[in-house]
């Protein structure tokens, strides 16, 4: 068998072939050693995600189902009015009766965000520059839709943006290129501003982690109360 490849020497007494064997062997050893260290020696990591500094609250009983909030959401984020691109969802049951005929589905900015945890690339993250609102970086999204599946609520508060080809979610209007208002937890939210029924509001206090925590009474103290329509 002819082997002419062992003649070249990269250093004193070391052939190129020996050098490659060393590099490959050491590299494989390091990877496997790292696995052992990570798997058996280092303790499990604990994920710490800072709480969002803002939350949307809704009063479904005030919602008329006009979907202005959906149009506004899509418009300020995407520059087009498209229900499919809205990050807040209004669903209606034409057979239902008040107050079970309309459902407002806003992202809860969960303290334990399953969508953030599910993301394999860190595209879905707590945005430290915008009050830790849970948001998606489109450049890092690989389109696996794990976040959409991970959201425990129906409809999923994560959506697939079929135009820009990435997952998206409510960012409390932190990134609204088509709106000249300051958004995010420290600013305004288009759905809150545009809702003609004032059925959506914003709070910096972490709601009680239940449906009742996010669906509140926004009627008491308003003209609705005079009409006997408060809680």
């Amino acid at each position, binding site marked *: 068998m002819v082997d002419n490849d062992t003649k070249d020497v990269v250093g004193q007494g070391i052939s190129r072939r*020996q050098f490659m064997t060393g590099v490959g062997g050491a590299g494989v050893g390091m*990877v496997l050693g790292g696995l052992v260290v990570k798997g058996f020696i280092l303790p499990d*990591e604990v994920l710490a995600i800072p*709480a969002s500094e803002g939350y949307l609250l809704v009063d479904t009983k005030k919602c008329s189902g006009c979907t202005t909030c959906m149009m506004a959401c899509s418009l300020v984020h995407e520059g087009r009015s498209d229900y499919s691109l809205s990050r807040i969802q209004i669903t209606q049951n034409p057979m239902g009766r008040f107050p079970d005929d309309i459902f407002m589905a806003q992202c809860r900015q969960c303290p334990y965000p399953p969508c953030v945890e*599910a993301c394999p690339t860190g595209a879905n993250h707590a945005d430290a520059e915008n009050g830790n609102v849970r948001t998606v970086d489109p450049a890092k999204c690989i*389109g696996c839709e794990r976040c959409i599946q991970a959201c425990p609520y129906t409809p999923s508060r994560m959506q697939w943006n079929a135009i820009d080809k990435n997952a998206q979610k409510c960012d409390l209007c932190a990134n609204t290129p088509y709106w000249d208002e300051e958004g995010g937890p420290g600013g305004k939210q288009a759905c809150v501003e545009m809702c003609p029924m004032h059925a959506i509001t914003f709070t910096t206090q972490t709601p009680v982690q239940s449906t009742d925590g996010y669906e509140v009474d926004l009627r008491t103290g308003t003209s609705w109360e005079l009409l006997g329509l408060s809680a």
Partner: protein
Amino acid sequence: MYWFREPVSSNRADVESIGLSDVLKSLGGVGEGMERELLFDSATWLVWSAPLVGVLAAGLSRRRDPVIEDTRILRHDMPARITHWTHGIGTMMLLISGIALGLFFTPTLVGGGEPVWTWMNVHFVFVTMFLFGTFYYGANTLISPKRFGEHLPTKNAVDYTKRHYGLLLGFKKFTFPPEAKYFESEKMAYLMAFASTVLIIITGLLKVAAHAIDMPAWILAVATPVHDISTVAMLAFFVAHVFFAAVIPVSWPVLRSMFSGYVSREYAEKDHAGWIAKIEGRPVTDDAK
């Protein structure tokens, strides 16, 4: 205020590494109560290992130079064949799975959810094969740079290519050039394959790294389209290569040699006169000159 939670399997920071048996299991159906793993996320270590195993294999391999054995000539030794088929099959399956995933975006070829994860896992498996084959080749080339030189076009590239394919197309005025081990046309295509392979690997590893560390978004915003464009270039090369090296009958002797290692001396003297002359230590003669 911070909220703490114990690690879950789907979390990128805390995902537990899994073994080969889990990788194979993940490619199959989803068992009851078992969520399908995204292998790029849970078995990232295999992506880092594959190139290193390729380098190690090159170090441990013993290469054979082409040699005339009576009526046949050793054209591809075993390492060359392993390199070719791991790189080639890897490339083919990466193109198929990558395009399936790419067309997921527009138009939809793969539905959301499970089909996407399946194709991503297929992509993962062949990424490891592709990386092994490519780094096996790369390390072999560094050990013996002359093998790299065999693939590079010479000053005869345009002239030989014109005469070679002109004759194949039936233009009688051309004479077959004394091609070396690889045709000059193959050598020019090699440059495109080489460039696209390098770009695909660099950008692909950046995309994989995003599963392990917090990558800056701008890097991925560049890596993703470069990966896609390189894939188109690789697809063009791959289709042309398969056609010219496997589909048309004149290429079948070389295709057989990619399994057996050998071509007949008769074929080599006809199609690779320059190569034979080099092996025998004779000067290359060109009928056209």
